[in-house]
């Protein structure tokens, strides 16, 4: 299995964040050890969350060396971590408004009569130019939530892995790749025989 990306764009092996457990033969699920304070541990006495991932005392997911992999705020309420692979597709354009940038690379935005930031098309955006809803969640062009507000930086920026070119966009280029593969499959086989070769 490929190593995954964390939100900072670093790679990690899924096995390095998993605790070691016995399995309940009836349910097939891992057997967490739990103390009186409700903290969970694995077979090696390491702190884990309810899903079995190694955590520090703040609830951040860590690897076997104690290095932080996911901040607690990035981990779901059930303790599950994001799964971002090198083949995960993401297109920044789907969440970015239309605007010019200043020399420092900051979006030049206007405000609507309610004082909310908008892009050139009048669509609501946050301070970084991403489409957003009333609650500050980042939405895509179709209005669906792409990133919950809680995982954004204080200035409304999305996690680094999504804006540093590490992930390929599912753009026309990807569709072209699929189309080319299909064309290659449907090409009639070239008939090669000695007569043809001798003619050149």
């Amino acid at each position, binding site marked *: 299995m490929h190593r995954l990306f964390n939100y900072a764009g670093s790679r990690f092996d899924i096995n390095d964040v*998993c605790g070691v457990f016995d399995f309940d033969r009836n349910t*097939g699920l891992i057997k967490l050890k739990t103390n009186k304070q409700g903290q969970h541990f694995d077979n090696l006495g390491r702190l884990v969350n309810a*899903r079995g991932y190694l955590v520090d005392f703040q609830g951040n997911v860590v690897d076997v060396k104690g290095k932080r992999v996911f901040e607690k705020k990035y981990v779901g309420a059930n303790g*599950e971590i*994001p*799964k971002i692979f090198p083949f995960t597709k993401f297109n920044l354009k789907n969440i970015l408004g239309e605007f010019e940038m200043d020399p420092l690379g900051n979006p030049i935005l206007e405000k609507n009569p309610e004082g909310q930031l908008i892009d050139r098309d009048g669509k609501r955006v946050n301070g970084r130019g991403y489409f957003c809803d009333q609650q500050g969640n980042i939405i895509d062009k*179709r209005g669906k939530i*792409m990133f919950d507000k809680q995982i954004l930086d204080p200035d409304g920026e999305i996690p680094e892995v999504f804006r540093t070119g590490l992930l390929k966009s599912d753009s026309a280029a990807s569709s072209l790749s699929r189309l080319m593969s299909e064309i290659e499959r449907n090409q009639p086989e070239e008939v090669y025989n000695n007569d043809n070769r001798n003619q050149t």
Partner: protein
Amino acid sequence: MIPGIKPTEEDPIVQVPPDSNKRNFNEHDILGEFDRDEKGNIILLQDNDGNCIDKKGNRVNERGYLIDPNTGDIIENHDKQKMFDKEDIDDRGEIPAPYCLEKYNFNPFKMRGDLDIDRTTKKPIILKNKSGQLVDKQGRLVNSKGWLINKEGHIVDFMGVKKFDKKQL
């Protein structure tokens, strides 16, 4: 895969409708059955009417996602329940956010073989059955890294639900 193991409401085979907070949606829940090319792209098939279908003849969209032929909604491949409304699918057949981004969810603990760990190398001790296939302590097929696999070599969970195609590894 494990006799007697049944899905529960808390832990269903497929989360219907999908719930992004649970991070258990995997695109294989809605993908038809396909062969893949060397680049890992699915090989779509067509019926006599030019509709996209999978290897079993099920109707799919251009992405290979199973669709209800009457409504165009995307359905899951277990009980054929609706997962996404047709209106929420984009013009390239892609599912809505955030699922289009988080579509490779899996629970690693449900996909590992039951294997002892070598104390020296810290690696799983993989066994072999009489046919020479790699297996875990319960005789289930595993790959060289200890992940449960089906007979086609795709990674599955302990209920046999496909999570990764072998071409994605």
